[in-house]
């Protein structure tokens, strides 16, 4: 059984505020089947009880690691940004006094007094980083595992490995991983940039004339974007491999505008918008075959910004076919196109930039409300909508793999920056500080627990 944390606040607190949930370690709730591991499928029950809607207290004990951003600091921040737990805040020195004597005598009574339901005990071992998770009320160990970490402390790979440990903790505690081992691609000054989900390791990846619309391959090993290869006058779709740094220009002989790429969930198909003359249509192509491309939209209008459903069967996109931009869905082969966002309540509506939630139930998009763009989500079963933002211009939502967080660009603090929203609690944090950041794309988990 899984603790179901409601996706959208509308269905939350009221009905369940007095319920008591049972935490479970069942592994069946993993995002991807390939992530399932033997140890996760045993369905060990964790009889930690807490009021659903409240956030269980988690105490992270210090390690011996040094430096300004220790393993403990990273893990605590990950738990905090995850929005499912309450981190028991103690400075390093105070926390040091809570370490078990002789490595095994834990003061569970004191942990309970501090409000901790769970204690995380990380320590460096010759084979890497060993993490143990303790149940405070039952005074016993729940899980322990040793993770190998890169040698170069604070390198991007090292930080990613610590985030991966945090995601494993999320799986142990809540039954599903968080979204700590992720990165976000975005556009700044017409180039593609990359930043860790917590704002660390911000770096520029491309330096073309105008690079836009980065999109992750589901493997996390490459990304697509639109750019100018220098051949012809139009933009082309580029696929960049992270490891080799090589860029493959898709259909480089095709002229016109080639923009807004997205990969299918199985990673085999790339769908993008191809503009020639006045019309821009979505086309689907094999990732590895430049010749086999198929037009998916028909008519004489603009169609851009495709996003696949998680099962790969449908595509959400925006189209100007009704005279103003709206969000539509269609089957992945281009059939059954239908209007998703109805425009009954706004005569000059403008809806754009759809992104399908990882659970497949909602689509986030941007909608013009009283002259400014705001982030919305529409429930695919009853078409009910929810508005997530109201301050400044908010655009281009992208879901985290946990289905709980959204990143988008916002002008709420001045120049356009990336922000992260917990759609359950409404908690917001600023991700980037350099002005002009836009078109974020949140990666899949880059370290599968």
């Amino acid at each position, binding site marked *: 059984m899984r603790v179901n944390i409601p996706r959208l606040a509308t269905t939350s607190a009221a009905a369940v505020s007095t319920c008591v949930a049972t935490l479970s370690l069942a592994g069946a709730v993993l995002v991807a089947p390939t992530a399932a591991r033997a140890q996760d499928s045993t369905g060990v029950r964790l009889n930690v009880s807490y009021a659903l809607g409240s956030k269980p207290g988690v105490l992270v004990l210090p390690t011996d690691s040094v430096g300004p951003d220790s393993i403990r600091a990273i893990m605590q921040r990950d738990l905090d940004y995850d929005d499912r737990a309450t981190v028991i805040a103690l400075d390093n020195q105070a926390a040091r006094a809570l370490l078990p004597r002789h490595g095994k005598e834990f003061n569970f009574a004191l942990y309970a007094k501090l409000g901790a339901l769970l204690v995380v005990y990380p320590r460096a071992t010759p084979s890497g980083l060993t993490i143990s998770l303790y149940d405070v009320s039952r005074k016993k160990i729940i899980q322990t595992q040793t993770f190998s970490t890169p040698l170069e402390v604070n390198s991007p790979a090292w930080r990613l490995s610590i985030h991966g440990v945090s995601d494993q903790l999320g799986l142990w505690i809540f039954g599903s991983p968080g979204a700590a081992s992720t990165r976000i691609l975005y*556009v700044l000054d*017409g180039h593609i940039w990359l930043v860790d989900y917590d704002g660390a390791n911000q770096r520029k990846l491309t330096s073309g004339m*105008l690079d*836009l*619309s980065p999109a992750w391959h589901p493997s996390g090993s490459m990304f697509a974007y*639109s750019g100018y290869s220098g051949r012809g*006058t*139009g*933009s082309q779709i580029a696929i960049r491999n992270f490891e080799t740094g090589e860029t493959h220009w898709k259909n480089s002989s095709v002229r*016109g*505008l080639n*923009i*807004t790429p997205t990969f299918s969930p199985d990673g085999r198909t790339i769908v993008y*918008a191809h*503009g020639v*003359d*006045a*019309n*821009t249509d979505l086309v689907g192509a094999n990732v590895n075959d430049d010749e086999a491309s198929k037009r998916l939209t028909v008519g004489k209008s*603009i*169609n*851009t*910004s495709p996003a696949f459903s998680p099962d790969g069967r449908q595509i959400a996109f*925006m189209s*100007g076919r009704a005279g*103003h*931009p709206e969000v539509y869905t269609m089957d992945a082969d281009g059939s059954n196109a239908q209007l998703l966002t109805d425009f009954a309540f706004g005569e000059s509506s*403008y809806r*754009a*930039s759809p992104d399908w939630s990882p659970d497949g139930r909602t689509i986030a998009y*941007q909608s*013009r409300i009283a002259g400014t*763009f705001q982030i919305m989500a529409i429930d695919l079963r009853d078409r009910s909508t929810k508005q997530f933002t109201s301050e400044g211009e908010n*655009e*281009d939502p992208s879901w985290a793999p946990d289905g709980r967080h959204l990143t988008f660009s916002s002008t709420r603090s001045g120049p356009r920056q990336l922000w992260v929203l917990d759609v359950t609690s409404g908690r917001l944090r600023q991700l980037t500080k350099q002005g002009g950041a*836009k*078109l974020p794309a949140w990666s899949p988990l880059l370290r599968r627990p």
Partner: protein
Amino acid sequence: MQNSSRIVLGALSLAVVAGCVKPPAPLQPRPAAVNADSMAKLRADSIARADSLRAELERQRQRAADSLAALRDAEQRAATLEADAMKIVMATVYFDYDQSTLTDAARALVDAKVPVLKSHPALRILITGHTDDRGSTEYNMALGLRRAAEVRNYLMANGIDGSRIETNSMGEERPAVEGTGEAVWSKNRRAMFAPLSGVQ
């Protein structure tokens, strides 16, 4: 026309140079027996000859200068006409918000491009569509292309070969003016023109 003007100019220059090089006939020393009167006459004659040569030289110089000025003037006028023609072809066309259809003002600007494009058959141009920064960045790329295409289609409907016109879009990424407000946005919703080849 330019080539033949250059030849005329060259011929004039030669004439001027020839006038310069030929010195006045030197005064030859004469036998001492020549009397004072004839000496005076000789001097007067040679002075008169020198004066007449100088005057002729001056007239030639003046003619050359006049021709040169006229030539420069003609060249200037031709260059100005050509520059004006290029200005007309390259003149930016503006659009209404979220629209790609040509306004009356835009149509008048594009109408003026037609005769110039017809009189410059070798000229090939690139039309780049732009938008203001409101709305979806991605949709605006396509909207910019639609604006460029609208101008291209209009030119084609008026007899210009479509193969001479390329279109592209920079969406909202290359604003003419930074900032917000209609005064800024209206300057950014535009189609811009650049020569690809065939400029005279």
